[in-house]
């Protein structure tokens, strides 16, 4: 058997083939299909149009519905879309629906999926959201699709996929305390460009990666799409298995898949994380890279910490470490990704204060778990940039208009850099605040 990358192996196993080569078009079986309030109604529409008004989904155990985008809004259309999901879930009797206003509500789908045990090594996850690639952190093939593709999967459990060649990014060395996974992935995107991985898989490897906790690995894979990647992926190790097994309540079996020795990579780049500096993406593209030290002092109006890529416990722990006992100089918005993270902020303590107390006493505003202003959303969305102001954010995109106003300036950076900048009101290298 010729050597294959993890991505090729997973696609081969899910298409009933011994081998899949980059460029092959194959029909693969889905293990999970995830959709949310923004793309769910359209997906359901496609499904019913083609399979019939009374059709049933291919496997109700494999469809996961997580409303997360436009939740805490008075927008009637947004609320109507959650009603569309509710009606569909009732009609199909779907077991995995994390409904708004119930104790099952989760928040951002990409964090909710692993928390609720829907991510496992070796599987195929399709989701109607480009950041579905986050779940590559669990050693699975996870990619974003549109409504038509999702409607097709909903009815058949299958989809055609063009097997991507794999790019390998190796991070060696010990990560200094002022760096986070966000710095690593912003460095990669800046180096290869926001089209540098188009039609390709991005595999992250090296002792620097395996030293990261699972949340930080999710941050790396989350932003594969910002380089155009079809998927991001990291080989499972004990850290992965411990997390997955603790969440895999239904004890679904899975198979760990790793890249073979001698597998072919289309590109390889090695980073020494011990010498990297904090990285920032300037407006208006995630690949508009600079070192924070090169743009420090630029004036800001707002700081935002949240989203699938920057709203996890690890992100808030890092930010709280800098904000503890200090006061922010600019409007600072804190949005936990999920209800589990929100609960963590109320229970985890730093020198006697909960993390939520740390943020509130620093003068930050706390929001409810959801995608919130990461993608703008309705005009009453918490933290949305309704005027052309300048914002530093832990989110993943800064294209024109992404967080609201199309002339707003958005800088993307790690939670450490965002917290340091919140304290000064200008772009600030976290090393300056960590002494």
């Amino acid at each position, binding site marked *: 058997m010729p050597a294959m990358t993890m991505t090729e192996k997973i696609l081969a196993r899910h298409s009933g083939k011994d081998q899949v080569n980059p460029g092959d078009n194959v029909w693969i079986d889905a293990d999970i299909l995830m959709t949310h309030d923004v793309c769910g109604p359209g997906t359901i529409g496609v499904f019913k149009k083609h399979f019939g008004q009374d059709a049933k989904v291919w496997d109700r155990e494999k469809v996961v519905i997580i409303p997360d985008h436009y939740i805490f809004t008075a927008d009637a259309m947004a609320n109507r879309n959650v009603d569309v999901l509710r009606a569909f879930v009732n009609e199909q009797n779907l077991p995995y629906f994390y409904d708004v206003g119930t104790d099952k509500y989760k928040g951002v789908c990409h964090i909710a999926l692993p928390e609720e045990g829907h991510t496992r090594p070796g599987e195929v996850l399709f989701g109607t959201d480009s950041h579905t690639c986050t779940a590559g952190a669990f050693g699975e093939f996870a990619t974003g699709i*549109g*409504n038509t593709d999702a409607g097709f999967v909903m009815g058949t459990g299958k989809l055609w996929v063009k097997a991507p060649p794999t790019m390998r990014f190796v991070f060696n060395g010990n990560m200094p305390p002022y760096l986070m996974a966000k710095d690593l992935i912003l460095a990669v995107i800046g180096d290869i460009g926001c089209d540098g991985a188009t039609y390709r898989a991005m595999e992250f490897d090296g002792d620097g990666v395996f030293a990261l906790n699972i949340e930080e690995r999710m941050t790396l894979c989350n932003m594969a799409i910002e380089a155009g990647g079809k998927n991001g992926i990291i080989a499972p190790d004990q850290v992965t298995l411990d997390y997955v097994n603790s969440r895999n309540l239904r004890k679904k079996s899975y198979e760990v898949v790793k890249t073979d020795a001698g597998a072919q990579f289309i590109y390889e780049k090695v980073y020494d994380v011990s010498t990297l500096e904090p990285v920032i993406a300037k407006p208006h593209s995630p690949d508009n890279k600079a070192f924070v030290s090169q743009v420090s002092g630029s004036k800001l109006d707002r700081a935002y910490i949240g989203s699938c890529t920057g709203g996890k416990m690890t992100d808030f722990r890092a930010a709280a470490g800098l904000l503890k006992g200090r006061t922010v100089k600019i409007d600072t918005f804190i949005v936990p990704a999920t209800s589990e993270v929100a609960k963590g902020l109320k229970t985890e303590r730093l020198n006697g204060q909960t993390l939520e107390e740390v943020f509130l006493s620093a003068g930050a505003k706390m929001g409810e778990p959801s995608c919130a202003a990461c993608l703008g*959303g309705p005009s009453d969305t918490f933290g949305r940039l309704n005027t052309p102001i300048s914002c530093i954010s832990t989110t993943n995109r800064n294209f024109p208009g992404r967080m609201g106003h*199309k002339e707003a300036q958005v800088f993307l950076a790690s939670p450490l850099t965002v917290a340091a900048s919140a304290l000064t009101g200008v772009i600030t290298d976290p090393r300056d605040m960590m002494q």
Partner: protein
Amino acid sequence: MQSTITGKAYVLGDNIDTDQIIPAQYLTYNPSIPEEYKQFGKYALSSVPPSQAGLPKGHVPFHTKDEFVSDYTIVIGGKNFGCGSSREHAPIALDAAGIKAVVAEFYARIFYRNSVNGGYIIPFETPDRLCEKICTGDDLKIDVAAGTLHNLTTGETWQLSPLGEVAPIIDAGGLFPYARKVGMLKV
């Protein structure tokens, strides 16, 4: 598949992402409802910064006569057209605005899949940097079978890249009709 596509060009630059094609606040419309599908046409390309809208000059509105349907038929882009989110509302917005084809150097993969699998627009690729050679308002004609683009305003002709493996899906009209044709779908 249409054999020829004719109409006016609307020219954009590199990295036209899905937020510029259809801003997130309009994603509350449900494209499965025909009345709401129309709304996407109204807001298509509404977050493109004015200086980049309708190159080479910029500041060219995408809509003039009709608030839902554009005067333009073919969008010309640079590199990485449609990058960003997986929202199928992006090719839907272009379709609802009356766009038949996009010609770009290359596409972000989810936008490309959505365009082809949904059967909304034909995403042609070009080895030439046409966003610097064609002007907004030029009259264009695409011969789909021959894969050629004629600029009727200037008399120039370019060979587009072959549609390749997605040609049968485009020809069938999208993923569902294609899957029925090849026996992957029995309903």
